[in-house]
């Protein structure tokens, strides 16, 4: 898959595969094109070249490049952002309920006339959302405004909101950014737990190498838009190409 901006090739023939239930990390120096890659997968950008295929748990295969972001989300991909993008003016519960949005049916007519199934659907959505918050450990904040949450909790709320869309693939863009070691450790546990209980595969972009090495089944390394290495954490750690990309030429002796 490739993505051009004018004359700049931000992602250059990146070929990446994630199997069901895997935790895969995408790493690389700043500006390598990792977030651009996320934007392409989630429908914010339409890739210039190449295809993105998904195989949802129900079976079958679907090409998703060029689809609207909300369609991509409906198909089972959810993401979080590097810089937190919560709905600041809404409560924690409402943030998660927005995530439930695409799984609900009632429209504007339901909102105006309030037939029983709409009412029960909304009650169900609130309960489901609360359950998700319990899993993530945010239930004590339910009615607080999102902007009043401590930093680590905001990060976890982003994950909760993403989970509410019932994804089979969760894309986490630097989930540990700005977290202290204790919070990072908690996140580590959370991600592993989610894979077990929620049946999701996870693709994460992360700079915290300790987290990446302990979590990932496989790692892809990008530099200047290209894939320069892939493999198990143990191999990547000692790959000279990767070390060069991160530290520069002179360290490779």
């Amino acid at each position, binding site marked *: 898959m490739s993505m051009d901006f004018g004359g700049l090739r931000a992602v250059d023939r990146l070929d990446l595969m994630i199997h069901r239930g895997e935790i895969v990390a995408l790493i690389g120096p700043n500006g390598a094109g990792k977030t651009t890659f996320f934007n392409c997968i989630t429908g914010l950008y339409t890739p210039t070249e190449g295809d993105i295929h998904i195989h949802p748990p129900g079976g079958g295969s679907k090409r998703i490049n060029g689809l609207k972001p*909300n369609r991509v*989300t409906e198909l089972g991909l*959810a993401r979080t952002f590097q810089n937190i993008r919560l*709905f*600041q003016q*809404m409560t924690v519960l409402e943030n998660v309920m927005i995530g439930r949005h*695409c799984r609900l049916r009632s429209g504007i007519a339901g909102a*105006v006339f309030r037939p029983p199934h709409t009412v029960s*659907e*909304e009650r169900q959505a609130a309960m489901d959302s609360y359950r998700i918050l319990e899993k993530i450990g945010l239930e004590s904040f339910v009615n607080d405004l999102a902007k009043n949450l401590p930093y680590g909790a905001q990060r976890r709320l982003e994950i909760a909101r993403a989970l509410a869309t019932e994804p089979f693939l969760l894309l986490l863009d630097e989930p540990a950014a700005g977290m202290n070691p204790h919070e990072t450790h908690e996140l580590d546990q959370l991600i592993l737990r989610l894979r077990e209980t929620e049946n999701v595969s996870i693709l994460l972009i992360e700079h915290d190498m300790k987290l990446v090495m302990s979590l990932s089944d496989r790692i892809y390394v990008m530099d200047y838009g290209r894939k320069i290495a892939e493999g198990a954490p143990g191999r990547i750690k000692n790959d000279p190409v990767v070390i060069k990309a991160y530290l520069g030429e002179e360290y490779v002796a």
Partner: protein
Amino acid sequence: MDLQYFAELFLGGLTRGSIYALIALGYTMVYGIIELINFAHGEIYMIGAFTGLIVATVLTFAGFPTLAVLVLASVAAVVYSSCYGFTMEKIAYKPLRGAPRLSVLISAIGMSLFLQNYVLLAQTSDFLPFPSLVPDLAFWEPYAHIISSQEIVIISVTATVMVLLNLLIKFTRMGKAMRATSQDREMAMLTGVDVNRVISVTFVIGSATAALGAVLIASHIGQINFYIGFIAGIKAFVAAVLGGIGSVPGAVVGALVLGWTESFFTGYISSDYEDVFAFIFLVVILIFKPSGILGRSETQKV
């Protein structure tokens, strides 16, 4: 000070304010969602008035009772204007999604001129008499010299609409989607919200309340023409800006403040300068509080 005169002005201002609020909603909601000043919104209101007139004339001719005529004419105006609002967004604004804001604004002005002239050609340039559709409430007779049944109906309909709309925005699934879209459109999409649908719904709601206001006020004032949308639109726009554009409660507050300002100034000083007072007041508010009365970043934007 004459207390009864004061009460009359107060209630007169409340009535004016209610109508401004019904129209201002469309401006403020659309601005909250896509940051566009929809200059064609006044025309939607005008089309609502014309639809109401046509339906009311036919129904009255067919011998329907006044109350039925009022209800059916309002429903027809609401439905017809909503269709216009919906179509307008699809034709004039949706293709420009992502274009610079100025382009969309020009498109809105074009739409406004088009609709005005369309009604001018399809209907007439003359003022048309609008029948009084609100029946006199018998029990209200003793107080009718202070505030008429018409005004009572206008105020209570507006209040009901505002309460319902507030509940819709606060508690329903669509309301949450609207708030999410207004805070971060891209993120709303990524959480699965169909943003195009939210925008359509916003236009439909704004058009519907404007049409409702149009029928009520036309029936109160007694005449309409193709140009009424311009003045009403400007006033409602002022109300929206006054209250803090993008904020629904702000639009209501702004509309009421504007209604009272006009009413009291014309009542106590001079009726020749009605509009001048309204705009002077706007200038003063904007000097001291540029974001409007409730226009803080923390207000609920939709």
